[in-house]
């Protein structure tokens, strides 16, 4: 659906935010050209398309740029027909937006914090925030998903995309910290959900492999430490 030339996505394979856009496009069966950015060498096109943030992802539709991953996902939902990413009912939509914002405001920063934490006390504080956040999301899955596989019900929805895109980096965090983020006892629904999301048709071709992310994380960490 859609001529290949008219939809482009500027991205980078390790980025969870780029993954959100890719999953959304896949859910709608949109043909697009993926323009891979190189770390440390931003393309002219990226700088021109996102002068404010100079970051990926950027969706180019008829050469018009749309930036910020959740804004891109909403745009994709509004432009292309196919399975609805956001639910129809306004209060359900509000709940979906609430939990997606929660992932960005609380979960992702805590994950970043774990990579950058200096000292045990700081690390403990971010770990608590991260585990607490996941506990809340477990409850949200129960309430919003109503016993189905995804937050969106039988199919992947907005919250699934927002949180699911973080799974690769969550697995990286688990490897680096020897911490279990998803626990069969404490977050049983999320454990199952993680499997469902990773193996979903719209996701499996574009979710980066954890091993590759671990290698990439090592490069990033080395850079971060050398700049500190």
């Amino acid at each position, binding site marked *: 659906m859609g001529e290949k030339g008219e939809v482009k996505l500027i991205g980078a394979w390790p980025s969870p935010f780029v993954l959100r856009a890719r999953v959304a496009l896949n859910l709608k069966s949109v043909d697009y050209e993926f323009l891979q950015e190189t770390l440390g060498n931003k393309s002219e096109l990226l700088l021109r398309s996102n002068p*404010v943030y100079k970051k990926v992802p950027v969706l180019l*539709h008829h050469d*018009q740029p*749309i*930036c*910020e991953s959740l*804004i*891109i996902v*909403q*745009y994709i939902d*509004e*432009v292309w027909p196919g399975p609805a990413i956001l639910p129809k009912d*306004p*209060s359900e*939509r*509000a709940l979906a*937006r*609430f939990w997606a*914002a*929660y992932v960005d405001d609380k979960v992702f920063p805590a994950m970043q914090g774990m990579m950058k934490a200096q000292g045990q006390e700081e690390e403990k504080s971010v770990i608590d925030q991260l585990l607490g956040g996941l506990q*809340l999301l477990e409850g949200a899955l129960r309430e919003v998903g109503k016993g189905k596989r995804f937050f969106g019900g039988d199919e992947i929805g907005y919250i699934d995309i927002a949180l699911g895109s973080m799974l690769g980096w969550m697995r990286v965090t688990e490897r680096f910290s020897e911490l279990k983020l998803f626990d069969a006892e404490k977050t049983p629904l999320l454990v199952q959900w993680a499997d469902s999301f990773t193996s979903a048709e719209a996701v499996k071709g574009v979710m980066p492999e954890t091993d590759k992310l671990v290698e990439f994380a090592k490069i990033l960490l080395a850079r971060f430490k050398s700049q500190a």
Partner: protein
Amino acid sequence: MAEEEAVRVLGFLPSPFALRVEWALNFKGINYEYKDEDIHNKSPELLKYNPVHKKIPILLHGSKPVVESLVIMEYIEETWPQSPILSKDPYERAMSRFWAKYGEDKCIPALFGFFTKQGEEELVESLKTLEKGLNGKKFFAGETIGFTDIALGWIPVWLKISQEILGENLINEQTHPLFYAWSRDFLDHPVIKEKLPPYDMLLAQCQAVHDRLLASSKP
């Protein structure tokens, strides 16, 4: 009909986030009951309806709570389509959301940083960038106010108060002419003018916050 169920807003008088919600409701002509919360002594109702963040504003539509001011604004737009605050065009909608988010993520922390004397450059820069969102229009939404305008319209108010308290004139008509013109036009809009907290009250409260911050930062 869902749209006809009672609407309540739990807010806190100087909160800019609650203001956004009231502006949006007023712009669409929706009747609501306002309840002022004491954020230092949170009511059981507040804690019940926003257990995750325990913050205002909270919109109660019938018995359903909606929280987070930008999420509330989207809800209001979807539930009451009259006097739209978002365009029907998906690209324009994306732009409105983008600039609202930019103001939220960059201008607000920058304003707070300026107020707490941590730096001026972020404020100067972020407001300059925000001007680009206007793109030659009177308001972010075009000829009349919309989503982004309502989301960011309190910045001029707080900026004016901050500059008065600090005795500064960092941002003005010469340095940021487009922002200045937009501020003036926004605050002049009849719906906005009618729902602005009294200036003296805001000034006194911000002065108190400022003095408290100064006192706590002394060695």
